[in-house]
Every structure is written in structure tokens, then in C-alpha cells.
């Protein structure tokens, strides 16, 4: 095992290894503010409790594809997907913009062997790690509150990572076009409708003939993926959702590293 690792390790592309240096830096910074990350555990708890206490009592069951599902169990996975999106968007927009414009962090980084691609990879990796911590917290709450009915739910962690990847690469790409802090007003203008209309709070069938609009939202594919895993209704069509999120990630990453190169290497 260990010799196998040794044989594999040197083949890790230099780029990837170098980009982990930025993750190291983030860990250095966040070591001092670990409270913020830890207290993040409470947020899913509050949301889930509120759904269960409030809407669960008001709504009861909803019909999804012919079967009745407890409303809280229906919404909880969607909240998990949205949380993955929001965390990734926050980390890759506000945070990156600050480092890009105010802190000039990347100017420093670019005077070392690291290049723009490594910067993009490193920051996305860090957003993913934070997302991982957060979605684990979410999963723990889901299970503890009995709001899931299948062991497939364990796979929501990688699914959340995929959502995080898609939104942080895309968020980062968009951030490179931001002119000032004012432009950040537009981010909730994009994420709020997505949060509300990605089959989050009611089944896709309620949108009737507008369902195709919902399917345009990348979050919808994340919600569908996580909901299926949480309810244990796993089927082959889920590959489609994975592909959509994967494509968004790749496109976002390409744009982000290109744009970082033009912004930083002038």
C-alpha cells in the first residue's frame, strides 16, 4: 500500500501539488478563526428544525412521482444542495474579489513559481474543503433528526462536493469580471431565484409546462441528485445531473484560469 503510494505520488502533476500551497495558506489564516467554521454546524440545524417544526406541521405530505413523501424529508435535501451552492458562491466571489483587488494576494503568489492556473485550482480546492466540512455537518443533522430514509444518503457528500465545484468555479469566473463591490448586488439576484425555483420547495411537476425553465438552473440538478440519494430513489437518469454539474465546473474553471491570467499577467 505505502510503496504503491510512493510510486504514485511523484506522478501527481506539479500544478496540482503547487496549488495545494494556497490551501495551506488558507488553513494558516483560518486556524485563528476556527470558531466561524465550527459555528457553521448550527446553521443546517436551525434550518432543518424550522422546516420540520413549521412546514412539516402546516403541509404534511407531498406527492412526488406518485408516492407520498413527508414534506420535511422532501425539503431537507434541497436545503443541503442550496447550502452547498451558497457556501461555494460566497467563498469564490467575495473572498476571491477581496484577495484579487484589495489584498493583492495573487500578485504576491505570481512572483513565485505558481501561475494563474494554480491560483484558480488552489482556491477552488479550498472552497471544496470548506464545503465538505459544511455538508458533513448537514448530513449529521439530517441523520440525527431522522430526516432521511436511505443509506444512499452517504453519497450526498460527494454530490455536494460536485455542486460546490460547479458553483465555485463558476462564481470565480464571474468574479474576474466584477468591477467593484457594487457588482456583488447581482449575486443574490441570481442565487435567490435559483434557490426558490429549483424544485427546492415543491416538486418539479408543480411547475407544469414551465418545468424546462427549472431544468436550466444548475442548482436544480444538484437538488434532484441529493434528493434522490436522500430518499433512496436512485436511478440511472441521475447520471444526467452529474454530467450537467460536471460541464458547468469545467467551463467555469477554464474561464476562471484564463481570466485570472489576463487580469494578473498584464
Amino acid at each position, binding site marked *: 500500500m505505502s510503496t504503491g503510494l510512493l510510486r504514485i505520488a511523484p506522478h501527481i502533476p506539479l500544478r496540482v*501539488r503547487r496549488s495545494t*500551497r494556497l490551501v495551506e495558506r488558507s488553513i494558516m489564516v483560518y486556524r485563528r478563526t476556527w470558531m466561524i467554521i465550527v459555528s457553521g454546524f448550527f446553521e443546517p440545524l436551525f434550518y432543518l428544525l424550522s422546516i420540520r417544526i413549521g412546514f412539516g406541521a402546516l403541509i404534511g405530505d407531498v406527492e412526488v412521482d406518485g408516492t407520498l413523501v413527508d414534506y420535511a424529508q422532501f425539503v431537507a435535501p434541497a436545503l443541503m444542495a442550496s447550502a452547498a451552492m451558497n457556501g461555494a458562491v460566497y467563498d469564490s466571489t467575495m473572498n476571491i474579489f477581496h484577495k484579487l483587488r484589495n489584498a493583492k494576494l495573487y500578485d*504576491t503568489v*505570481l*512572483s*513565485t*513559481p*505558481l501561475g494563474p492556473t494554480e491560483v484558480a485550482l488552489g482556491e477552488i480546492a479550498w472552497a471544496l474543503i470548506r464545503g465538505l466540512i459544511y455538508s458533513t455537518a448537514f448530513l449529521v443533522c439530517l441523520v440525527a433528526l431522522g430526516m432521511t430514509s436511505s443509506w444512499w444518503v452517504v453519497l450526498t457528500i460527494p454530490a455536494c462536493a460536485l455542486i460546490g465545484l460547479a458553483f465555485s468555479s463558476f462564481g470565480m469566473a464571474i468574479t474576474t469580471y466584477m468591477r467593484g463591490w457594487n457588482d456583488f448586488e447581482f449575486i443574490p439576484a441570481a442565487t435567490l431565484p435559483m434557490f426558490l425555483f429549483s424544485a427546492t420547495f415543491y416538486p418539479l411537476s408543480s411547475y407544469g409546462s414551465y418545468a424546462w425553465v427549472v431544468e436550466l438552473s444548475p442548482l436544480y440538478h444538484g437538488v434532484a441528485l441529493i434528493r434522490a440519494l436522500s430518499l433512496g430513489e436512485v436511478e440511472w437518469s441521475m447520471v444526467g445531473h452529474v454530467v450537467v454539474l460536471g460541464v458547468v465546473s469545467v467551463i467555469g474553471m477554464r474561464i476562471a484560469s484564463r481570466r485570472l491570467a489576463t487580469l494578473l*499577467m498584464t
Partner: protein
Amino acid sequence: MPETVLTQPAETATATAPVVAAVDIRKQFGAFEAVRGVSFEVRRGECFGFLGPNGAGKSSLMRMVSSVSPATSGTMSIFGLDPRTSGSQIRARMGVVPQTDNLDQELTVEENLLIYGRYFDLSRAECRRRAKDLLDFVQLGDRAQSRVEPLSGGMKRRLTIARSLMSKPELLLLDEPTTGLDPQARHVLWDRLYRLKEQGVTLVLTTHYMDEAEQLCDRLVVVDRGQIVAEGSPAQLIREHATREVLEIRVAASVVAGIESALSSLGLRTEVLPDRVLLYSNNGEQTLKDVHELGITTLSSLVRRSSLEDVFLRLTGRTLND
């Protein structure tokens, strides 16, 4: 897996090959051409200077040498490598002190050095060792655990310089290293740079300060409006573009207007500055007598050896500290 991948100077070329060779470099920002066809060579182990007024294009040149800013045209070779394709390898062997400090505000003084070393793939233990030595080297040892923000401007400058040395660079680029330092700190820094040069580090620096250029540079180029207007050692430049001595006189404001024509009969090069008049001659005392014989009363006068400042004034028509 080897932790340390510090690139050792691959002796591909002979020891006399230039560290930096630039031919007809141009840099365009939109419609504005900041660097307009510049060629120069930096030899191994020397200290090379760019001297020029604000906006001359010094920083633009430095950024191109540091391989983060592609030249619009022209060819550049650093360590025999092309910065457009081998930027990463080049930067691995180079230390950079940018004009404005870009220290990591979220980290402590020591952490700034540690993480910078990590960017160069140094092991953690090695980073800690070097950070300690360098903090002593720039006299910041007692501030290791402090945040960066409360440091004074001069301390930040010294930390930036220490940071650039973390990777033990073969080539050190310093963009106005002593701007904002008090005279004492400046002399300390000069001393440190001397020691680096003794160790064989090649230095490239930009400056507005004549004394700095005279003190440190083996060779320098004077840059003005994106072009090189003179090149040589400090002594050479003084010899070629100035006289042996300079007479500085101050006169009453009422006389200033006509003074240039009044002095023309002396046949010397004259510069009328807002606060004083400079006369270039090989015998200052004699020139002062001549001035008085013309019936001009001076409020004060000074004869001094000519310096790079005079060269600069001659070549660019501007003083440095305007």
C-alpha cells in the same frame, strides 16, 4: 517524495552569459506605449540599475523581467529561458521586491515568510530555518509573531525584502527598494544588498535616488519616457554627461526671469530650476567669480562635484525630486 525541489542553477550556459538579455522590448497598455524599444543585458553577479523619473517605465520593465507581464514585442531571455513559455522555472530562481509592498495582511510576519517559502516548494523545516535567519538579517526577529498591519512602512519594506530572499534567489529584482525608508534604514539595506552581491547574487534595481545608484550599481541605464537615454557605470555617465564641478547659486526672485540670457555670455551649460540655478563648469570657484563680475548678486552659492543627478537632469531635462 522529495520535499525540496529547489532548482539549482542549471549551468547550461557559460558563466559569462548574461542573466537577463532583452532586445527591443516594447510594452503597450491599450493605445499607450509605456516601454518603447529597450535593449539591455544584465551580467551574472553585477548590480544593474534602472534610473528614471516617474512614469518612465521602470516598473513595467521590472514586471516583464519578473515574468509576470508579457512584452508586447521584442525578445527577452532570463537564465537563457523564455519568460513566455518558462515563466514558472524562471520565477523559481528569482526574488522579487515590488514597488508597493504586497504582504499578506491576514498572516503574521513569520507566516508571511513561511508560506512564501512553501510557494517555492521548500520543506516546512527549511522554511522555518530560513525565516528565522532572514528575520534576523532584516532586524525583525522580535516582531515575528506580530501582524503585518501595525508594522511601520520601513519594517514592511524590510519584510518584503526578507520574503524575496526566502528562495535563495540567483537574481533579485528590487523596484525602488529604499523608498519610504529613513536614512539609517537605507544605509542598513545598502549594506545588506552589498553582502548579497558578495555572495554572488545578481541584483537589478530601480531607483529615483542618485546616491543609491552611485552607491550600489555597477552599471545602469537612464530610462526616460520608455526609452534608454544613456548607459554605463556611474563614473562613466558623470564623465560623459556632466562636468567635473557644478556651481549652484540662489538669486533674488526678481532676477530669475532674465538670468538665463545674463549668464549666456559665460558659454556654460546652465539649468534654471525653480529654486536655484546650476552652472556646469570644470572650475566652480572661477565660475562664481565670473558670475559676480557680470554684476549678478547671489543670495547663496555652493560648489560641488557633479553627480548622477546632474547626468539625469542633462538627459531628461527634469530633476528627480519634483
